[in-house]
């Protein structure tokens, strides 16, 4: 959210149709939505995201909730648009042949935080190797900061089902990483470049 503006003010203005509020919400949410769609293999992530936000903005007058609820609602619409995109294309998202060239760069000692870096292409390959539902659960947790309960609502599944999907997704992910990774010591990633490791978002 833009500095100095309370979420409630932005939401109220957006519900009244103010362009600046639309832009504020779009700038705040679009990067994660587009990343979610891209890592799911959407053919045109920008276009699907645009359709998502058109649906969000036109439906905003009926929305009630806080910022967290809005984010969950936005990803609900994004997930549905993604499924529509899959159906239009009548095929699963792009899958990598293998992750054999996956390279993990690590360094430091065991007492420090894990110092590993994964390239963008590697992330795409790892995500493409996961089943759709498992990938959706992991990405919604990492990108959208949604809880298991919120993801259950987004995907229209039970909480237990989402927990099972997360467990299987993590297992599959770990196996692929362990099988194909090549640890290269000596490359240390600065702490400032690792917000996910430090909790700074």
């Amino acid at each position, binding site marked *: 959210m833009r500095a100095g503006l309370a979420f409630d003010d932005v939401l*109220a203005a957006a519900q009244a149709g103010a362009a600046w509020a639309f832009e504020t919400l*779009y700038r705040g949410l679009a990067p994660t939505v*587009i990343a979610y769609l891209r890592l799911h293999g959407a053919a045109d*992530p920008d276009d699907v995201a*645009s359709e998502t936000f058109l649906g969000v903005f036109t439906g905003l007058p009926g929305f009630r909730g806080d910022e967290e609820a809005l984010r969950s609602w936005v990803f609900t619409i994004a997930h549905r648009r993604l499924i529509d995109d899959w159906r239009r294309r009548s095929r699963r998202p792009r899958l990598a042949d293998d992750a054999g060239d996956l390279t993990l760069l690590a360094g430091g000692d065991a007492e420090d935080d*894990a110092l590993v870096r994964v390239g*963008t292409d590697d992330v795409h390959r790892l995500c493409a190797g996961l089943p759709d539902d498992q990938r959706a659960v992991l990405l919604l947790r*990492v*990108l959208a900061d949604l809880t298991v309960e919120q993801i259950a609502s987004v995907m229209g599944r039970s909480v237990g089902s989402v927990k099972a999907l997360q467990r299987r997704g993590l297992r599959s992910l770990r196996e692929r990483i362990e099988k194909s990774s090549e640890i290269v010591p000596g490359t240390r990633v600065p702490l400032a470049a690792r917000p996910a490791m430090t909790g*700074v978002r």
Partner: protein
Amino acid sequence: MTTTADDSAAEEAFEALLTGRPVPFEAAGLAAFTEAVRASATRPGRPNAALAELLATGLLTDQSEPSTRTAGTDGSPPARRGARVRNRRRFAMIFPALLAKIISAGAVAQADTGAGVVVVAVTGAGVVGVLPDPVQDTVASVVETVTPLDIEGGDEVAGDEVPGEDQTGTTDPGTVPTPVVETAPPAEPTEAEFSAETWALEGPDAYPSFGAWVSAGTHHDVAKALGVRFGELVSSRAREKGLDAEELAAAGVDLGELTGATPTAAPEAEQETTVATRETASGERGSGGNGNGNGNAVAGSNGNAGNGKAAAGNGAGSNGNGGKGNGRD
């Protein structure tokens, strides 16, 4: 071989990653994956045409193009008339949109915008040379100081080399500053009571019928509140909805009467100037009087119900309140 313990450890590490807690070295690969996924969410993306328009204009769309029902056929009007119709409809949409933007802006931005409109209005009047001499001289001096224009009444004698389009350019509506939302938080955009802006923005679709919409606008005197020609605004909306004279009459709307009853506005070319001048002139025009009468009488008593009557004011509004009659045994 993956065991249940491994799954639990991976889940714990995953939860730790999501909450920013440190993770064991065994989860380095998972941590790297999480970090890379988050790092991929930095590109703002390119909105498509529909979303870009929505981000630029909000939900206040400019329906400047005539609908197919009103487009000319064999007996189509001349092109000039078509342009005038489009101008009126554009004004009918742009003016409420401008008002909404001002309303949704902060107090500082509103002051800036108001000052900008007044400056444009005064500058335009100064260029035309219709201001009183002292004011004309001052305006001319200021404008000539900050612009290359020569204006009648300034220190220098106006030359013929000043192109006319440059003078008219000073009244370009595009020079009206837009609200600067980055410098001030927006005011509350909604009102619980009747709002003329809301009435104009939502249009007849927000009312049970077209007649009800017109009636509400008449009752609350939105023509005065918005500074627009009420009859033309209603006519524009009627054209958008494809209502002809008979249907309007059936809805209880006499377009001719509405057009004739509303105050005359300035020419369309000076719409923005009119906005500012109406603000100052509104206090000189009298508003219609309001009459209220209340009467209470207990059964068996001789109380008289009060009657209130008010005449339409011209120059000053008049209000009449009926007396209240109360009687007891």
